[in-house]
């Protein structure tokens, strides 16, 4: 019976061939490490955010007079409302953890190289959409941080030449953050996750065209690719289990880690909190914004700091595969950059006074210098490595590269 139904569908829709091609038999490099679990985890977090968000929206009221109370109603009176809300609020932070690890893995192994440029750029589009969604979602509880965060961030758009004021007005729907802002942020906060979902689809279509990268950085011979199911379904589920243990520890035992105390005070346009501080996942970019003394310069620097990742497929001019795995200088740059981002995040959480100012400026300089030096460093590094002789395992990899790879003209990494 079941097989007849499937057959009926298959005559009209490529169900079985889709499942085989993209899920069960999808060839996957057997040497993927656990760092490759985070793409799947990001997809899981997205679905969980959408699912909990839909239920929260059934009780939430986007109105300046009701929003704060409706969140308390969810927390206190709706059955398991606290669970939905804490999963959702913790999930926002978890999303950024997962996405940032996913990006860091891509950076470490330089997986953005040819042929995966579109993976990298669609991924970056996803990051921007996730940031926008998180920012708008943060307004909805209508606490002090919600309100003042939105006020400060929308204000930044005012530096746009000529149209600044109009853009701010258009974003807020009013001269200051208010009811019109809340309703439009709610509408968009409900819409964007579905745009993200669609873009994830595109990200995956691109992935299944170029196939997964792997720690060696070159495509493996056929025998080293194994079917996705059961090998990677199991590996992903095991990783999901570990992730959920950590996630649930926060949800059940420390959910207020991600809710700033001032956000438990209803928004008050007449009372500015002592420090207005964005959520942790925006802090590095916020530190860059404040590092530049001029407002326009700061906003431009912040925007560039988010977008500049897009140049990496061009800026990293090496032909040595595997990223930091085989390239000592690239590896050093990776860790310096990582430490620098953490430092920026730390500076972003501090008031911009005393030695935090030069510290933030130095860290900003290191941030941008990494990108601007990479084209030269990567070339010089390759010359140096080739002069010294490539490591034996790398040479072996070059040798075993499959002869008729469609990316094989000059080596997969450019």
């Amino acid at each position, binding site marked *: 019976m079941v097989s007849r139904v499937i057959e009926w569908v298959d005559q009209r829709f490529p169900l079985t061939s889709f499942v085989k091609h993209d899920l069960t038999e999808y060839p996957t490099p*057997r040497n993927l490490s656990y760092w490759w679990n985070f793409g799947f985890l990001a997809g899981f977090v997205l679905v969980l955010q959408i699912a909990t968000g839909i239920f929260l929206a059934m009780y939430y009221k986007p109105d300046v007079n009701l929003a704060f109370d409706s969140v*308390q109603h969810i*927390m*206190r009176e709706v059955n398991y409302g*606290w*669970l939905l809300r*804490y999963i959702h609020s913790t999930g926002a932070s978890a999303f950024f953890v997962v996405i940032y690890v996913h990006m860091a893995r891509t950076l470490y192994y330089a997986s953005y190289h040819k042929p995966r440029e579109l993976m990298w750029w669609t991924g970056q589009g996803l990051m921007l959409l996730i940031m926008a969604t998180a920012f708008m979602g943060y307004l909805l509880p209508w606490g002090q941080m919600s309100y003042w965060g939105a006020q400060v961030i929308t204000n930044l758009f005012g530096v746009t030449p000529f149209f600044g004021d109009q853009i701010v007005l258009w974003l807020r729907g009013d001269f200051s953050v208010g009811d019109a802002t809340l309703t439009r942020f709610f509408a968009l906060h409900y819409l964007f996750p579905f745009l993200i979902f669609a873009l994830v689809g595109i990200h995956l279509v691109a992935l299944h065209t170029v196939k997964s990268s792997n720690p060696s950085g070159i495509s493996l011979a056929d025998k080293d690719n*194994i079917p996705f199911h*059961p*090998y990677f379904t*199991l*590996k992903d*589920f*095991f990783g999901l*289990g*570990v992730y*959920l*243990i950590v996630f*649930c*520890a926060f*949800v*059940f*035992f420390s*959910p*207020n880690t991600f*809710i700033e*105390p*001032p956000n*438990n*005070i209803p928004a008050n346009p007449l009372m500015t909190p002592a420090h207005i501080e964005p959520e942790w996942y925006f802090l590095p970019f916020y530190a860059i914004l404040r590092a530049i003394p001029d407002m326009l310069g700061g906003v431009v620097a912040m925007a560039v700091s988010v977008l500049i990742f897009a140049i990496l497929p061009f800026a990293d001019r090496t032909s040595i595969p595997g990223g930091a795995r085989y390239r000592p200088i690239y590896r*050093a740059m990776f*860790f*310096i950059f990582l*430490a*620098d981002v*953490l*430092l920026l995040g*730390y500076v972003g959480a*501090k008031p911009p006074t005393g030695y935090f100012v030069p*510290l933030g400026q130095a860290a900003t300089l290191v941030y941008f210098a990494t990108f601007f030096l990479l084209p030269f460093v990567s070339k010089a590094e390759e010359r140096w490595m080739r002069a010294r002789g490539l490591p034996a395992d790398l040479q072996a990899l070059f040798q075993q590269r499959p002869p008729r790879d469609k990316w094989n003209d000059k080596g997969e990494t450019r």
Partner: protein
Amino acid sequence: MRSWIIFALCGLALNAGAEEELQLHQAGATTDLPTLERGAETVMTVCLGCHSLKYIRFRELEKLGIAKDKVDGWRGSNPMGTAISSQMPAEAAMASFGKAPPDLSLMAKAREGGPDYIYSYLLGYYNTPEGGLGNHYYPPTKMPDVLGVAGVTDPAQRAELEKKAREVVSFLDWAADPRAQERHTLGYYVIAYLVLLTTLLYFLKRRVWGQLDKT
């Protein structure tokens, strides 16, 4: 690059030292029922004179385990489902303090330091040399010294006040998150289940991948 990380950590440590302000006292808030009950008593009879507790309904106090006749005494003729409001109308409060006393239901989560802050604040009153009233933790506060702390020097009396403040803070901590107990109980089951499931998945994964290595 390792030195970078160490450098960053040193920065963290240095700064932690530099930023030390007035130390909060540990409130030692508990969830034990008699403490909560005595805390509720003080909040209902003292704090509600000015503050509200609007996200808590009388019914919840009964659900928490406070004796019904006590709750009935506090609610008077109000139905069980009434949200707990202040005895002082907002305008009167504005007139006497120039500031509306904030709602207390979320107070334990709405200040840096949470319960410890409230505890320190309530006990932070002192008589200034000019004969006025000061508070170490919120110097310009408009709230009077409701527990009568300023000027108390007798250690036994002081301990009594600390006990009272601890009860109040424990109750307010419950009020900020009445589902915390339920959340913890459920959390243990969820985590235990996940640990079991993940362990099984780990062994299953190892077995399946082990067969791969043989081929």
